[in-house]
């Protein structure tokens, strides 16, 4: 081909302009198609983030107001946090977030990995067991919440049933108890998500090269050593992905708290998302709601930015 181009130098400029016009159009086509969604995302995600940040520095109540009043909303949030005894709603929300996030992510990872390892032992009926564990993920948080609400209600569910069977000393009222209600949210959340984490780990386990395992076994590694020294370290990327997905779900889980506990006794099951919705839309304190939303965004960024950074570093390597 190159010989053709060199032997016909007269034609080349004309041809090349024709090609380049079409070529340029072809180059631009994906951009043209992407442009509307790009613009929409820019406006409706990033534009509104900026807008929310602006509102958090105003004195907005029912409707947005645009007169800046300084960081009053933030001061209120943090004053509540540091000086509140009994705990304020914001303090409750962020401590609940810490408890819920830590337990939910931790238990989901541990349980998911455990189930995946058991399922990976070439057991019979795996194809039946897998969807059974996975399918809670198909339910919305609302359904999960309502189902567990009934199940955990001392007057309706578990406690009542066991009393019927004669175990009358059995007592389980966490869902009505201000100090324990957040743990019922963990239970329902773990039930929903651990199957999904299991599926992720199972895929990872299946992707591990059998040769390495065999080599280790020949070297005399016990199954425990095998998993601890080889398999789990190899699953590191899966851990990271699962962690990111779970962290997202933990931070945005609003509906689970509402459906399961309707906020808990005296608002004791609130997460920051509940706080944000409650203040912005129900209490007409848009500035405080916006401030809490910005703090949530910064929390998520604190997780995502290091993740992206490590991912990019991995790619560059």
């Amino acid at each position, binding site marked *: 081909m190159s010989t053709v181009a060199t032997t016909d130098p007269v034609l080349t400029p004309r041809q090349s302009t024709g090609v380049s016009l079409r070529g340029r159009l072809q180059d631009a086509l994906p951009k043209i198609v992407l442009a509307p969604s790009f613009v929409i995302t820019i406006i409706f995600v990033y534009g509104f983030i900026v807008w929310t940040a602006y509102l958090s520095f105003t004195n907005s109540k029912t*409707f947005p107001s645009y007169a800046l009043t300084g960081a009053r909303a933030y001061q209120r949030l943090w004053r509540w946090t540091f000086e509140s005894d009994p705990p304020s709603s914001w303090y409750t929300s962020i401590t609940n977030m810490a408890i819920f996030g830590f337990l939910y992510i931790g238990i989901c990872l541990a349980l998911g990995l455990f189930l995946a390892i058991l399922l990976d032992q070439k057991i019979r009926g795996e194809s039946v067991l897998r969807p059974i564990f996975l399918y809670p993920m198909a339910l919305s948080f609302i359904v999960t919440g309502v189902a567990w609400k009934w199940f955990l209600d001392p007057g309706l569910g578990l406690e009542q049933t066991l009393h019927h069977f004669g175990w009358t000393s059995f007592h389980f009222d966490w869902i009505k108890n201000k100090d324990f209600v957040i743990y019922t949210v963990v239970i329902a959340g773990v039930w929903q998500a651990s199957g999904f984490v299991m599926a992720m780990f199972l895929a990872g386990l299946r992707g591990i090269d059998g040769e390495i395992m065999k080599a280790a076994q020949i070297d005399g590694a016990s199954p425990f050593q095998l998993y601890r020294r080889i398999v789990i370290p190899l699953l590191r990327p899966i851990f990271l992905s699962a962690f990111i997905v779970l962290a997202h779900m933990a931070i945005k889980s609003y509906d689970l708290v509402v459906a399961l506990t309707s906020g808990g006794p005296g608002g004791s099951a609130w997460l920051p998302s509940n706080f944000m919705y409650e203040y912005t839309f129900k209490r007409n304190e848009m500035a405080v709601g916006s401030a809490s939303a910005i703090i949530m965004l910064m929390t998520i960024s604190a997780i995502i930015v290091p993740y992206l950074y490590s991912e990019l570093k991995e790619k560059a390597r």
Partner: protein
Amino acid sequence: MNRFLTTTAMIALALAGASVSAQAADVKEVQMLHWWTSGGEAAALNVLKEDLSKEGFAWKDVPVAGGGGDAAMTALKAMVAAGTYPTASQMLGYTVLDYAQAGVMGDLTETAKKEGWDKSVPAALQKFSVYDGKWVAAPVNVHSVNWLWINKAVMDKIGGTQPKTFEELIALLDKAKAAGVIPLALGGQNWQEATMFDSIVLSTGGPEFYKKAFNDLDDESLKSDTMKKSFDNLATIIKYVDPNFSGRDWNLATAMVIKGDALLQVMGDWAKGEFVAAKKTPDTDFLCYRFPGTDGSVVYNSDMFGMFNVPDDRKAAQVALATATLSKSFQSAFNVVKGSVPARTDVPDTDFDACGKKGIADLKAANEGGTLFGSLAQGYGAPPAIANAYKDVVSKFVHGQIKTSDEAVKQLVQAIDDAR
């Protein structure tokens, strides 16, 4: 440069697409945003629909999923922000004033003059339906929250009589406890707890105190020993609920009284709607008393139809809606079903049951005697931010996050101050 121009054009195009406004509404149609979806309420609203269709106006519900009104208010906020106003929306208290302040409400003063609303609607209600001298909302009913609802069979069984003071109420609750009945049916949601506390404060401090503390938000009254005493009384009464009360809906608590599992409930008169729906009659199946120590005063809330500033061609439909809403026939028919009493004091009480008749008489007396107070728990005592701060504190006290009444008072003052 070229690329820059293209991008700019793209953005302009996207914005133009986004700003195409919604289609104009039909002028012979009343667009109504409300959350009255339960059987009785829907039936009651049908009366209004029929009245309007006689005058040739179609009725269009603006769909709002989810009960309780929160979802409706969020939808309304979005509609108003987008500039597509409904003809009217069900609204509560300070919300009307918020919207009026934002300048989106219509003006019904002409109709109001013609129909004589100024004279028939209690002045306390006009505070929320009239803004800046203009009628912006049509009140539909008056609920009062300082009621006791008692199961008569249980009352007879334990040999109780009407409690006249708070101490007698506690004695009555003790009797029920001794007889093995749940003395007090309560739903542990913050608005229910606060609604009960409204009655307790009125009973403990008297009408003057209630007004100063909860309507005027007077700091001295909020900090006072009377307020502490009120929290003490709340602590006393809360001991009579069953352990499983947290998070229970108000109508489930009412059902406990209807079934005789519990002796009484402290709740607004919407509870009567549940009794009526369960085919119970006042004085034979259930009793309605004013919360002890609050006779002669009425702590109210009221449903209003806020009227939006619709274009001129849709005004006729709005005026027809407002007129029909405040007509005596609708006020009577609607409130008989809803359990509340008419928002005008000149509606005959012939169709109402014993509790309704008492409610109408009480409202009239309270209106004339100056003892008609907006309920803080229901958003008629103060703007939503303050009302919610109040509900928070009461709820935290009930559920034990706030342990002493000293602390509760301190928290209440602080929370109200923050929300101001």
